[in-house]
């Protein structure tokens, strides 16, 4: 921890168990959406309080009200016995409340260090202490065990790495009350463990923590209490020791799910795509085969090179060596266009940067890849446009007032559903899903996995990248493990243990000349 950060916010001196923050009928209406119906909830000092709920249940909205990002419609927020306006983020920060927001909101043009200290710069005689800040930022990052440089420009990092920076940054600021809105969405187990260690340490220091996640095991691992939101209503708060996953899911979605990971096995058909020693920026010598009817999983730590591999396969980046065989014939994929023409579809990992046109309507986002098909004589068929969009909205249960709402007005998980949904009607042969279920709730996850099966049954093949090991583990027919740009191991369906796979992805010891991240 930097000395400056602690000077800015005096260390918390709270007796545990006391109510530190109370929501008194907190309510939020957006135009067209009643996102949060009056909520009453008290947070105890020093607890880790999980909040769960379906996509669009109002979790992020609650956080935005608490941190002064959005004005509330009505209700009170009582901080240490006193009603606070919390009209601006600055007010919240001054109280010692801070959050890691779901969509990583940092400045991509600034360096990591500049982002860490944005708004709280160290300066002397009015001049920025740039070197000192880089050093201090590095110290904070290293102290948290994140292997990241502080002097690089944020935009050069992968989305997962950015997420870590956002977490590191918030911990410096939220000295009394810290909120994590799906912080592990893009993280692998290793980074998540580092984060959990950090969270427990903060709890030990008396910081109150709200933890939002769609991963139930994390909730049970970390939280003291858990609250469930459904459709903007608080439907219950439980001590973690007095509940179980089934109950929470039931509370969340008002029905129960017997089985999340829906796995059907199909007899593999012909080879759809094969890479031979494919190399490119960020990965080398990767040979992978995908056959009709199978899911090929790629697992690895952040920055292992999986995304680079699939975007190169997809023609977005140049390969430097190796071959791509499409249905047995060597092909040159020089652009996404070539890839799509061959029959590939890619749902990219960063929905904000690569996946969505945020200020366009949901319907347009969903139909973007298929406008050619739903036009005739140059004109777009309005009926088909409507039908296709509405079908995806219904199938994926995208929570939106209409297909005309802007993508930016959807909750994070619902945005993610658009990224996936836009390809489902496209009729591709090879689907590449890069972190497809980031921020997606349990119910919809099950839905998506069922859709995978439908795709497979139609003779398509799938490449599935996930940093969430259980997902690839339970779904992949062939599981490839990446480490620092190399394919280091391959397993069949559930043929290795979690520990083995994690070990192979980590394996720091065997690594001799590990490259820089």
């Amino acid at each position: 921890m930097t000395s400056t950060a602690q000077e800015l916010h005096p260390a918390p001196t709270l007796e545990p168990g006391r109510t530190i923050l109370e929501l008194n009928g907190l309510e939020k209406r957006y135009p067209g959406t009643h996102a949060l119906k009056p909520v009453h909830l008290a947070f105890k000092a020093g607890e880790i309080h999980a909040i769960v709920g379906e996509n669009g249940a109002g979790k992020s909205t609650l956080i935005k009200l608490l941190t002064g990002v959005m004005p509330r419609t009505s209700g009170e927020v009582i901080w240490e016995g006193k009603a606070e306006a919390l009209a601006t983020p600055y007010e919240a920060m001054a109280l010692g409340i801070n959050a890691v927001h779901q969509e990583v909101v940092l400045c991509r043009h600034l360096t990591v260090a500049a982002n860490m200290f944005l708004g709280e710069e160290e300066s002397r005689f009015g001049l920025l202490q740039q070197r000192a800040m880089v050093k201090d930022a590095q110290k904070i990052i290293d102290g948290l065990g994140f292997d990241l440089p502080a002097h690089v420009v944020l935009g050069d990092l992968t989305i997962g790495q950015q997420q870590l920076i956002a977490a590191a940054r918030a911990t410096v600021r939220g000295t009394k009350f810290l909120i994590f809105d799906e912080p592990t969405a893009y993280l692998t187990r290793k980074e998540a463990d580092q984060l959990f260690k950090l969270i427990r340490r903060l709890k030990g220091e008396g910081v109150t923590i709200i933890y939002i996640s769609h991963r139930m095991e994390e909730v049970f691992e970390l939280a003291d209490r858990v609250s469930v939101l459904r459709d903007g209503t608080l439907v219950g708060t439980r001590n973690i020791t007095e509940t179980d996953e089934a109950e929470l899911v039931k509370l969340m979605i008002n029905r129960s799910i017997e089985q999340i990971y829906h796995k059907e096995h199909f007899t593999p058909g012909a080879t759809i795509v094969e890479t031979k020693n494919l190399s490119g920026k960020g990965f080398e010598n990767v040979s992978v085969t995908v056959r009709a009817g199978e899911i090929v999983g790629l697992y690895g730590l952040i920055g292992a090179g999986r995304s680079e591999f699939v975007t190169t396969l997809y023609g977005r980046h140049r390969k430097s060596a190796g071959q791509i065989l499409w249905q047995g014939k060597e092909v040159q994929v020089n652009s996404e266009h070539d890839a799509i023409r061959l029959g590939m579809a890619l749902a990219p990992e960063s929905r904000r940067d690569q996946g969505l046109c945020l200020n366009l309507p949901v319907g347009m986002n969903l139909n973007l890849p298929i406008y050619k098909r739903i036009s005739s004589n140059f004109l777009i068929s309005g009926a088909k446009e409507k039908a296709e969009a509405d079908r995806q909205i219904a199938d994926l249960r995208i929570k939106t007032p209409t297909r005309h709402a802007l993508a930016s007005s959807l909750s994070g998980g619902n945005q993610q559903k658009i990224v996936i949904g836009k390809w489902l009607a496209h009729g591709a042969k090879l689907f590449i899903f890069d972190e497809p279920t980031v921020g997606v709730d349990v119910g919809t996850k099950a839905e998506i996995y069922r859709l995978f099966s439908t795709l497979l049954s139609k003779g398509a093949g799938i490449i599935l990248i996930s940093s969430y090991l259980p997902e690839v583990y339970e779904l992949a027919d062939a599981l490839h493990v990446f480490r620092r740009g190399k394919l280091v191991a391959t397993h069949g369906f559930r043929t290795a243990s979690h520990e083995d796979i994690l070990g192979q992805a980590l394996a720091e010891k065997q690594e001799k000349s590990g490259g820089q991240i």
Partner: protein
Amino acid sequence: MSTEAIPAERSKRNFNALFGLTLLGLLLLMWIVLAFATPSFATTLNITNLLRQGSLIAILAVGQTFVIITGGIDLSVGAVVGFTTVIVALLINAGWPIWAAVLATLLVGVAIGLFHGFGIVKMGLPPFIITLATMTSLRGIGLLMTNGNSISINSDPFQAFSRGSLLGIPYLFWMVILVAIPSYVFLHHTRWGRYLFSVGSNAEAARLSGVNVPRTIFMAYILSGLLAAIVGVLLASRIGIGNPTQGDTYELQAIASSVIGGTSLFGAIGSVHGPLIGSFILSTINNGANLLNVNTFWQRVITGLLIIVIVYFDGLRRRGK
């Protein structure tokens, strides 16, 4: 961020219409006020004048809007107008039939648009820079071709066009309609229009979704160049000369019309009817001020203030939604 003027889909379309209507409402309000304030405003002669005067910028504003929707800007349109008056004048004076001279001139506009697309897509230049460079160079080339003089066009039928009317509506305004209808269909009802929006919203996402981003950018600038060349031909017909210094600051008027009409300079938000209304709002201000005999200096002051007021209220209304 406002949400209007996005490609018309059903209920959105109502919204759009409403938006258009309300800016249109402002325009109508100005007309009503002027009709009461000055006896000469609501005369056939004056309405004809007004329609003629707004036409040129209106057409430019539509082309500019295509470009702005992709997140770009075309500073060259004024220079293209001036340059193409010279081309069409030279060709007509060289004895080409009018249709051939006009066609060739429009191709020059297309070529300029192609060049811009090339500079942006292939050379990676910022749109501001490549179109600024064209603006400077084209005026120079035009001046070289004419040696700084005006070229008188020796064709009465060519000039008659801009003075004529059909059904009481001047040909110049018919040209606006002729441009606006296909532009509207193109922008709001074809996939190319959708692609313009998607590129302006997030080029990377559009690309990964299979949109041919380079081609889309080429298309926007070619359309802008083509429409500017059309305006050049119309202007040549109206003033009867080819002169490369004409059309000065038209780019600014076109951009302003577009923005007044609700286009966002950050891309992905815009329509066809908005810029049309925007340009007629600007010409109404000028026309009204002339009729009311407002001092020309005051006229400038008032124009500036009115722009602020109009865009402010329009913004209020849109945020209110």
